């Protein structure tokens, strides 16, 4: 039986999908670097490419994130938004 993790980290995501950051489990300096690039709690972000490193799309910009760092970013999957424009 597949074990479902209690909490999902960004590193657990593989295929393109939308998520929201719920919490960080990282040193403050790393958290700050992610936040200034828009990877903040409560914002909807899209995983573009999994792997190591991975690529996420935030507010129309691509951000490359180390997989080790992604492992400290707790996320929650959110349903895909339809194109609002």
């Amino acid at each position, binding site marked *: 039986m597949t074990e479902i993790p209690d909490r999902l980290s960004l590193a657990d995501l593989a295929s393109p999908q939308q998520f929201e950051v719920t919490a960080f489990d990282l040193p403050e300096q790393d958290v700050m670097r992610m936040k200034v690039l828009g990877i903040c709690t*409560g914002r909807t972000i899209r995983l573009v490419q999994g792997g190591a490193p991975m690529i996420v799309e935030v507010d129309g910009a691509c951000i*490359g994130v180390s997989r080790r760092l992604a492992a400290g970013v707790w996320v929650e999957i959110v349903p895909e938004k339809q194109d609002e*424009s």
Partner: protein
Amino acid sequence: MKADQDSSENLKGSSAAVLKVLDLAEPKRVALIGNPNAGKTTLFNSLTGLRARTANFPGTTVDYREAAIEVSGTTVSLVDLPGAYSLHPSSPEEEVTADFVSGGPADLLLVVVDATNLERNLLLVSELLERELPVVVALNMIDRAERQGIRIDADELGRELKCPVVVVSARTGNGIEELRKMVARQVSKGCESVVNQDLCGGCQGCQFAARLDWAEGVVRRTSEGQGERLTDRTRAIDRFVTHPVLGLVLFALIGVVIFMLIFWFAAFPMDAMDALFGWAQATVGSLIPPGDFNGLITDGIIGGVGGMLIFLPQIMLLFFMISLLEDSGYLARAAFVMDRVLYHVGLPGKAFVPMLSAHACAIPAVMASKVIDDWRDRLKTILILPLMTCSARLPVYAMVVAILFPQQPVWAALTFAAAYSLGILMAILMAFLLKVSLLPGPTRHLVIELPPYRFPSFRNALFASFDRGKIFVKKAGTVILLFSITLWILATYPKTEEDKLVGSQATRLAQLQELDGRDPAGDSDLAGRYLATLESENSFAGRIGKTIQPVFAPLGFDWRTTVGVLNSFAAREVVVSTLAILYGADEDDEGQLTTSLKNAKDEEGSPVFTVPTCLSLLVFFVLAMQCLPTTAVVKRETGGWKWPLFQLVSMTLLAYGMAFLTYQLSSLFV
């Protein structure tokens, strides 16, 4: 010796430093600030042309560019601050920007905002407005935004931000005149600070999320079409460029092109400069009466400074290429791809730029280390760069290989490859040792914006290479000039006078003069070479070499080789010419030089260049830090003498230890 301390030492007082900068300038000061990739440099170049000067913020290793410009009859001083996403700094450059803003030395902040990515750029704007600083927003790349179907109501945006907004395209020059007028107007009216609204709603929870939410609202109210900026084309290119395997292949191909440019293409201007300095030496030498002053000017100053300036084409080419790659959006992708490789040895992905260029020359490589954000990672990279085989080592490798494997091209090639590999392996080992000892702490994990692909600006690339060239000539040149004169004095004095030679030396000289006289072509200069050998032997450098030869004896070096090694601390390739002089050979005749060295005997009549000695010499030159220009540049980039001296001592000890092991072990078998 902790990097964090260094970093803070480097940066401490930067508030005072920026205030000091302020004191120097009479005109009103306008600071250009913006996100990386917002087109800040292009706008600065558009506004200033080639008038900018590059300098360090006092007390830091961070560069800034400044130029006096005329705006509607008013002279203002425009300062190009390092790019920053926020006033919460995460690199030495961002810290200087934040300090500059906090220190308040600017009369006006000209904020460059990317119109194609307005929402993200407004985060920094919100931080600036919140501090009630005088701000003008330059809405840049408007032409590109329009092509993407984005329409922005600049007047409405100005009303939202409560500060002037000017629409520009730094690349085409559209709107630049309007921007100049606005800057003049805002500066001349005393730059009222913008009394601003509560931008992030009290910043409960994540202030960045709140700011981005605010920015989203501003964008929604002032523009249309900002929804879909990441195009399918970008995604498709990224799938290839950032692919774990294909991305590395592409990186390798681009790396080869850069390497070829620095290593092969730069050889043409370098040869031309070499010829120019040779011509200058001959011309100036013919104008000054023979003697010590002639030697000081031609050999000491022109020769020494020429030996440094010869690296200029490599530096300018490298920075030209880096600028193109950065502008195109590829540099960030390359760092992304290389991160997974370099992380394992404790280096960040961006270290690939300096590491690659160090294989041509360590000087531009050290200067290129600025691409690395984290000070500790940057320092670690700088400290290992001179272990890569640079072009100056090649004459030494060629000499040793010619002695060891004449007419054996396969073994010669393998020896070359082994020397390159040894440098890389030791660099990796050193990086690891630094990580667990002097520079502890985790390598900074990668978080990097992958900017949109753009056609790079050749103008920006030319400006960047010109700037770096100027810095190199100005800063390294002064140190090198001093060292060149010192080395010339050590190698020249005390003088050996021909008519004061006695005993066997006088007899030998007379014999050689007689042999020269018998040469029907009159080309023979055996006596001249012998005299040069005696001069070198009797000079301070020769005497020092003889005195400390016992230190190098366990490496298999005789006193002449020791003098060669000492002289080569100025520049590695000098060892070839020194050995040629000391063994009475012609440096330009490789065959004759090799034969002379192979036949060289010590005082007891034993061969000097045995296989163990050659291997030991090769290993020593692969690993030793023997390049004064590099030391001067490391001093500049690290902001003091501590790290360049540490590098010099540690690499010399490493070279000595490894050469000792090589000599002693190979002596057991050969």
